[in-house]
């Protein structure tokens, strides 16, 4: 299968002009499969961490959203221990006008603004709600431990 022109264009732009704190490069063996790194936003518990993700563009992309997952262990109410991300634009709020770049920026933003009200990792969310600072400290700890 040849790649749709759009994917090529996006890839090209990601490589040449990546958003700050984000890098994404397709794997050699599958151009729909990207290795992604996202740096933790400043003044967030993830600051200083470099998080690895993988991103996959399904056949139906851009009509269907890309699939993204954290590879680096992260303590975040919207990210479970398998790395799955709870983000609306990756689900029902997906729009084909969105791109890989925008998806990754959204994920980066999610790190800066955890939303324990729409949790994926229930225990983390619980922790966050009950003891926010403790949870943040835990997140920092994890960041230090796993993402540096």
């Amino acid at each position: 299968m040849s790649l749709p022109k759009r994917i090529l264009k996006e890839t090209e732009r990601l490589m040449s002009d990546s958003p700050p704190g984000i890098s994404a490069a397709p794997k050699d063996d599958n151009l729909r499969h990207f290795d992604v790194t996202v740096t933790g936003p400043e003044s967030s518990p993830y600051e200083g961490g470099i998080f690895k993700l993988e991103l996959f563009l399904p056949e139906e992309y851009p009509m269907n959203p890309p699939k993204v997952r954290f590879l680096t262990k992260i303590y975040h109410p919207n990210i479970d221990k398998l790395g799955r991300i709870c983000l609306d634009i990756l689900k029902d709020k997906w729009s084909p006008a969105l791109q890989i770049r925008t998806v990754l920026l959204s994920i980066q933003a999610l790190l800066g603004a955890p939303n324990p009200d729409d949790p994926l990792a229930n225990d983390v969310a619980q922790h966050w709600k009950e003891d926010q600072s403790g949870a943040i400290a835990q997140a920092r700890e994890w960041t230090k431990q796993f993402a540096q």
Partner: protein
Amino acid sequence: MDVDEPVLPQLRKSSPDLFFPVSDSEEEDEAPVVLRSSSTTAGPSSSSALNRGNGSSSAFVSNGLLDLDAKDEPQLLFGSQNSDGIVPIDVKPSPSASVGPSSNRKRPMSQSPPSIIPQNFESGYLGEFVCEGWSLSKGKGYCQPGSKVVFERPKPQKVVTEDESRAVARSKEKAGPARLVNGKVVGAKAKAAIGKQMTLGSMMGKKAASAPARKAPGKPVVDQIIRFRNERGFVGRLSVQEAGFLTHLLDTGVIELRGHVIDCPQSLSTGATILLNVKVYLARQAFVKVEKSGRKEEGSFWQEQKETIEEEAMRKRKDALGALFSRIGVKPLRSNALLLAQKKNGSAVINEASLSHFGSPSRPTSASGVKRSPSPSKRSSGLSDKGKGRASAANSDDEEEDSGDEEEKLDDEQMNEIDTIYRKAQQGDNRLEETDPPDTFLYTLRPYQKQALTWMNARETGDTSVRDQSLHPLWEEYAFRKEQVQGQPIEIEDDEDYVDPSRKFYWNPYSGELSLTFPISNNKARGGILADAMGMGKTCMMASLMHLNREGAASDDPTDDTAVEDEESASKRPKFKQVTLSNQWRAVPTVRKAPASARATLVVCPVSLASQWHDELGKMSDKRTITSYMWHGNDRTDVGILLGQEGKKKVDVLITSYGTLASEYQKWKKNKDKPNYEGGSIYDHEFLRIVLDEAHNIKNRTALVSKACYELKGQRRWALSGTPIVNRLDDLYSLLHFLRLEPWGHYSFFRSFVTIPFLNQDPKALNVVQYILESCLLRREKSMRDKDGRLIVDLPPKTVDIQVLDFSRPERQIYKHLEDRAKRRFIQLDAEGRAMSNYTSILAMLMKLRQCVDHPLLVLGKATAEDDETAEKLLDAQTGDEKTSLKDMIAMYAGGATSEATSDVETVDPTFAAKVLRELGEQETTPICDLCTNEMFDEVLLPCYHRSCQDCIVDWIGTCEDQNKQANCPSCGKGPIGFSDLRSIQRRRKRINPITGGYTDDDGLPASQGETAVTIGKVDLVSSTKLRALVRKLEQIRVDDPEVKALVFSQFTSFLDLIETTLTKAGIKWLRFDGSMSQPQRAATIEEFGKKTKEPVILLISLKAGGVGLNLTMANYVFMMDTWWNEAIEQQAIDRVHRLGQNKPVFVTRYIIKGTVEKRIMKIQRSKTALVNASLSGGASKDKQASLADIKKIFGLGEEDSEDEAY
């Protein structure tokens, strides 16, 4: 016949030489008796013929059921001593019988020499062989080695006295008069030998006697028993193997047998083996010409694929003779060129295995230096080999009958071989001399065209001096043998020592005919097949020939003329000819013109090409040197008058169409025999030259149009076709028949020589075709090089781009549904074994699928026949799991009926809306679509004033529907949006005007009304993937070449309709060319297309109407919208553009939709096992089985499926 003359008197004097040679050792009462069953079949007419030449023959022949061999005594033929025992057959001499109506009818293309049988010829000794028989008697002393035997057919045979009535001849049975007791003659009480009598008339009616023997009702089992006995009453029968091929010959009176016992047990018991020596004589009857129905007869001969009874009889005779010859080891003195040609490629076997027994010529002929093949005679004269002849005859029987119904298609490999054939026919073509056309021809010919002129000229003037001397290509020359001295019963002789070179006879191993006269190759065909590849200027070459050879052949070859006259008018009443004549006189009373000097050329071409011929002839010819006249439509003047005109009104070339000709033919057939028929038909005029353009139009020999062409009278005949063999070798036959190329123009010949062997996968068939083509076909291809190594045609490059497209989502849904249902239906039918009987509806279903690939809307097209019912059901059927019928789906696709009104989008930011509208009017560059990140194509406006490609947004809405979620604008998230909310934006280039209005429900303004640069209309989902791809491409092209001219081919005119609409909306000028247009309309269209314009013009052509012949070199882009079954047709279409006169590079784009029937059709197209005919002829094909296999493949049910392929 000088050959026979010295011999025959001698024969008569010493008939023992001729008949059974007497061995003096026998007891008196043991005189061998020979059953001449051959002459027993002689009816009144044949015997009368004998009568005239031979005073005594009446008695001789009529009584000749039995020729007794009574040692050296002339009166053995019912001489006085024996005649008391003989009941002579009552034969009425009827001198007129042999010239009765049926025999009078001359074969149009006689391939047999005049069947003159020297009056005194009785029979000729052919040779002898040893065979085995079984005793049916018991006891001692019945027979001994050396005792002579009589052969007879055991059962009472019918006697036919009717002469002309063939049908009766087959069923009448009579035994009495023919009964002949020979026992008394020799004093033994042998039972009556029963002879069979057949009239000459019925023989000539070519129901050779096998018909009665084998076909008579109530006698279905073929009787192959040949008994033999001697005068003592001992009876035996020949072994079945031997009898097999002898029975037929005995029954038809072709041969006479005599024999004697070589070895037998002292005491006979039933079933004991007796070794016999059998001598074979060719009887007079063998040389009586067998009449065949010719082309004039509207009988079944031309209508049935199957061989007629006559053909069957001839075939049996041929096979039997072949077996016999090989059994005896007779070898030709001279063979024909064709066999030699075959020999070059190994042992020559053309279907009939018997043919292979014919050794190479023992004398080198003009054509040969071929070595003699190992003589089969040695082998076959041995006992061990005795079954061979029989077996081979039987084989060919079976094969032929089996194959009668098959379609003779060429598979891939064979098609390749055909290329090879052409190639061989092309050898040396580049060394042909060049002939310059006369000055009156204005065009400059290219070198290869001048070569063609040389060749054509030679074909027309015909260097016949050599050819006429040569042996007819199908005949072989043999000599009778001298009978060897008695007393050496078994002798495997060295043939030539015994051959009597002064007594020759000729055999046609293909038809089974025998002749005593030299069969001259009298090929009168003038003309040939000009089969240069498409676009090489066949029209031009033919025109130059018209200039070169202007006058008729009336003087240059009188024999030719008369031959033509003979052949053509033989079956017509003389009066008819006169009428025509007087017509001519009336028209031009002052001009004394010999009626025979035909000078006009008739061009028959597809109607779409008529005006092209007319125009081109006009352009090529110096003023008034050649004037052409289009003779078609309703204003068809009397041809006689028309062509009789002189001076300014003189007509040199008459151009007509196949259709016109066919209707004229029908009219003529109806009227010609009426007493008040006045002539004036095109069939009453003899043309100098008949040219069939796109001659593959007559490839079906049974089609009316083909018959119409065969009947035309002309001295020279030409067939022009870039594809003389379309998909079966039989295609060629029709052309050869039209050309009257002897002997191939005879179906039976062609069939037994090409078709049947071909069916039997015998590669020799192709050798034969090649041999045929060498003489009459000229074919050059664009890629060929001249003697200096340069390309003979220097055409600009051609690029073929196969665009594999992906369905849009709704299209795929519709297609999938349709395909699933069709598949289910097919599987069901197939499982029930009803696939065959529903063949046409299956094809109709396929048709729907193919249409759906072009555009879902096409599927809704009207059903064209009841066959389509099934296909219609495909659309209606509501199978359980589907909520909506396909019709609904398609309707939805079209954006009509069902799509419920979607809720109004809330509020739109007015400033944004204004900005967008302003942009629409002003911006010159196409905006980028958010979804595909390309320039927008088929720009649509969403309610929120965001824009997108139509494809992208439709895809998005479809995806959302699938996921049962609301479709919102991808850019702003407003929604929901539905298909009906989309508004298309049509931009007209070249004029930039501010937008005038908001939404309009207009379908876009007519192109002429150009104030608005942008129209916003209801989204036209009446588009399809292919349509959009086409428009997109056209838009691209016109950026590079604003004056581009392109052809768009589709096989569905309904699709052309949709393309029209789309082009209109896109503001692209188009023209239309299809089958529904009249000739003037077509001509006008082509002319219009040829005009220089400042804007792109697209010619929409229906593949069937415009695929051939047209010269459209003004265009250099070709779009093939769909896939036709036959690649050759598509090739033809492309060559409308890529041909002589094209000076720009040619770009061909083919659109294929991924994962549909198209891909599989293409595959089949490549393998060329082709459904071709099945689909073309509406399903009446006979090889449905094969086609079904193809259909399975198309449905993806075949062995290998191919989802893994590129498309």
